[in-house]
């Protein structure tokens, strides 16, 4: 793995001196043997993975998928075998990762946001129809309970299916696709329950054989005269019944044979509706265009509280960043003074919150803020309904979040402080600067170079810190006049409630809201990174 270091240090064995190109080790002819071997191994692995991925794609008939696999493999081979594509050697892996983990999910979210994908609208229209028909099979009122043996004519794997039936009176019959045939009692052998265990001319199916033909057997019905059929209910029993609803392609509707009701397909909403607008529960996934976005913008219960939530959301993220920064940096500075003894122990203790699972800690903190039984009130002798009041809940949330977050900043700040040469502050002191001045004008600017990206990422992380809010307060407390918007709701917890709280999961709607949040966070991140770049310039 360190082969390139030798290469980079200069070509051994008196090879003509040439500038050590980045990526030179992967260019043909210049690499060491070990480097070559690793390269061959990696490319071999790539090929193996490609072949492995291609088989299921081939069997599923997914030619686009195979095309993508082939293209990516070819690209990788070209990049790593060609002597020319040196910059690409560095860029391709990162780019592919970016495509797979960033761009594809974003595109998928955007493409989902223009559909009605969600509970009741997950599959295709065909699946919805199949499900409606299968759910409408009802046992005939006068159905006889048969004992059933599944058999076939000839080969058990391919022969025509036959249901060997014993009715409660002990009469034995064979039912095939054409109807029922009486069997002679002496042509069959039955067990004590009356179930046929052997029959002349038929091959009985074992459980594994039944399992192999499961779909066929589930759909099989022996016509029994009056329009209904005898169907299997498991391996050993059968009943008489029929599907009462069927799809009629002519009217693109579902007709209920029992009531005569018609449910016409509405391809814009992905549901079957009857005249009164009543829908069948099973729907399908359709494109709804900008409806989800329009719903976010025009629904007063969504757009009304939006700015209030956004404001608190910004305050929460900024407040967390500020607290974490002050606490982390302050402690790091404190731990940086030489006079303090046992600094290692203190440092370990200070980083402890970082080592605890935040999920458990959040729940623990929630219990500590309990008004009647919580540690906080008992310890301080207070009687504050912490999580029941809007501002106290916000305060509690900030405190807990700062507690969870400061160790990270503390660690980074400690590292950054140690990397700042002491001569600089000493020089400042010699020039007559006080402790505060040398910190403010020498240490802090240097620290900020390392800390600003951390602060920006802390901000974006906390902007969407679902766990903290969801586990601590659940977004609450909620004003009595609106159970949908709580005092500590972030955009992300609020939209989670909108998209998944009410009518089950509404992925299309949730995606549309995600797109909005994505835009907000993207704008904030771009602006703040711009600002941090100006900081670097001062450095």
């Amino acid at each position, binding site marked *: 793995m360190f082969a390139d270091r030798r290469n980079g240090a200069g070509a051994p064995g008196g090879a003509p001196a040439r500038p050590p190109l980045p990526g030179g080790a992967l260019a043909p002819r210049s690499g060491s043997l070990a480097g070559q071997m690793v*390269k061959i191994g990696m490319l071999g692995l790539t090929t193996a993975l490609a072949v492995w991925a291609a088989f299921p794609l081939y069997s599923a008939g*997914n030619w686009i998928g195979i095309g993508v696999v082939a293209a990516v493999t070819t690209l990788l081979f070209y990049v790593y075998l060609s002597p020319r594509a040196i910059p690409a050697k560095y860029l391709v892996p990162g780019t592919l990762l970016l495509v797979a983990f960033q761009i594809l999910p974003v595109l998928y979210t955007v493409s989902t946001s223009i559909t009605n994908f969600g509970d009741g609208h997950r599959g295709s229209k065909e699946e919805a129809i199949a499900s409606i028909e299968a759910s409408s099979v*009802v046992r005939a009122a006068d159905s006889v309970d048969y004992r059933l043996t599944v058999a076939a004519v000839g080969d058990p794997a391919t022969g025509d299916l036959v249901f060997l039936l014993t009715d409660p009176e002990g009469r034995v019959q064979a039912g095939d696709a054409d109807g029922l045939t009486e069997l002679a009692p002496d042509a069959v052998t039955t067990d004590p329950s009356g179930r046929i265990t052997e029959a002349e001319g038929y091959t009985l199916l074992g459980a594994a054989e*039944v399992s192999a033909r*499961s779909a066929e057997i589930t759909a099989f019905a022996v016509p029994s005269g009056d329009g209904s059929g005898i169907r299997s209910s498991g*391996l050993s029993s059968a009943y008489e019944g029929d599907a009462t609803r069927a799809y009629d392609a002519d009217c693109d509707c579902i007709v209920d044979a029992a009531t005569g009701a018609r449910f016409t397909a509405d391809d814009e909403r992905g549901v079957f509706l009857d005249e009164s607008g009543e829908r069948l529960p099973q729907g399908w996934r359709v494109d709804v265009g900008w409806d989800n976005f329009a719903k976010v913008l025009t629904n007063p219960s969504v757009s009304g509280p939006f700015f209030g939530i956004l404001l608190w959301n910004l305050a929460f993220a900024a407040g967390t960043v500020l607290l974490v920064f002050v606490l982390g940096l302050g402690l790091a500075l404190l731990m940086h003074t030489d006079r303090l003894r046992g600094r290692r122990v203190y440092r370990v203790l200070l980083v402890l919150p970082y080592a605890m699972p935040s999920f458990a800690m959040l729940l623990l903190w929630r219990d500590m803020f309990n008004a009647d039984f919580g540690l906080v009130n008992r310890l301080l002798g207070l009687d504050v309904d912490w999580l029941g009041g809007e501002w106290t809940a916000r305060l509690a949330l900030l405190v807990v979040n700062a507690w969870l977050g400061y160790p990270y900043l503390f660690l980074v700040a400690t590292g950054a402080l140690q990397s700042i040469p002491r001569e600089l502050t000493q020089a400042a002191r010699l020039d007559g600067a006080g402790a505060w001045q040398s910190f403010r004008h020498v240490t802090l600017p240097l620290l900020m170079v390392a800390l600003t990206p951390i602060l920006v990422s802390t901000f974006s992380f906390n902007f969407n810190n679902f766990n903290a809010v969801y586990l601590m307060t659940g977004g609450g407390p909620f004003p009595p006049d609106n159970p949908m918007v709580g005092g500590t709701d972030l955009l992300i917890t609020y939209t989670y409630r909108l998209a998944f709280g009410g009518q*089950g999961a509404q992925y299309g709607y949730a995606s549309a809201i995600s797109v909005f949040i994505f835009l907000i966070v993207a704008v904030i991140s771009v602006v703040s990174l711009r600002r941090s770049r100006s900081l670097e310039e001062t450095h």
Partner: protein
Amino acid sequence: MKIRSAGVFASATVLTLVATACGGGGDSGEAAQEEPSGTMVIWADDIRTKALLPFAEEFGEAHGIQVEVETIPNEDLESNFVTAHQAGSGPDIVVGAHDWTGNFVQNGAIDPVQLPEDKVAAFNETAIEAVTYNGQLYGVPYATENLVLIRNTELAPEAPSSVEELVETGAALKDEGEVEEILGLQVGQEGDPYHIYPFYTSAGGYLFGQDDKGDYDPSDVGVGTPESVAAFERIAELGEKGEGALKRSIDSQNVASLFQDGKTPFFITGPWSIPDVKTAGIDYEISAIPGFEDGEEARPFVGVQTFYVAAGGANKVLAQEFVTNYVTDPELAIALYEEDPRPPALTAALEQVSQSDPDLAKVTEAGANGDPLPAIPQMAAIWDPFGKAEAAVISGEDPEEAVTAAGKAITDQIG
């Protein structure tokens, strides 16, 4: 080199990821047919997996097939099953609460089961009613559960006949310094509709009206109606600004320990809490949850644990066989009871276990008048706003405002 080889490896990984992502768009039906036949898969949570295993093995041996029982955490079971069904990789049978039915049906994830009449008759009527959806039986029940009132007989020897009596006894004990709280009923900051429901019904409230077939009617939402406001006014009287029997500070985390430590004489909970109460050494007695003196009977929710047959399973015939012929066997019900003591839904099994466990009969009796948890998908819209209205009312806010807002939020969601 380090960077570069990592790069190649990463790209190889990406390649596979991209490939599998594309593979997801493939025809899942075909893939299902290619699966090796003769394996039936059951999904259940950890408690039930343990009890099911021996029966699954027995069933497998009897039929010469392999049965796998996979553990999925209860809170993920419903959504995982729907997602897996969509991807064509779901199980053949799933075991869970009956109120998932509506969601499973609208996603086409389960098939109806056809039980002969004599088998239907062997079950508790409420249990069958619970698993019936749109006139179809969508699963086979095996256990029921409902809330009861557990009291500490050292502190409260007599079962209270009304809410008022309960509060009076509890408040007297609190004044004497014997206990800290009047009643252990979990509320929490976001409320708990499941646990407040008995009081809500006793005070005249309802969630959904019923149509002529006895099914819940999603177009008739009872939250926000004058009846529900009146009911919440009664609940407010018990709240923090009233008697102090209902408090948001009592939540699912601390309610059990309050009772087990003798800090409250009354505990409204389900059969799942009984083992811990026993372990804590509390002298207890179980009775039905009392209603308000001048009100209706308090009706708890009845939840039913159910075996569902997956619509997308590769082994539907075997799954139907297991559910119709094995789950209807009292022996399995008793084994499941021994793992997790909830009353069996099979009358015969209930009678048998009641002989050694008298609590069980009391639990079933307390739930005899209960309402099956609504299984319609619209129920999902109720939980959250209803709970929040409850929390607001208990904290002392105006019931009319809170309940009207909750009703509006619910009807907005149902659309």
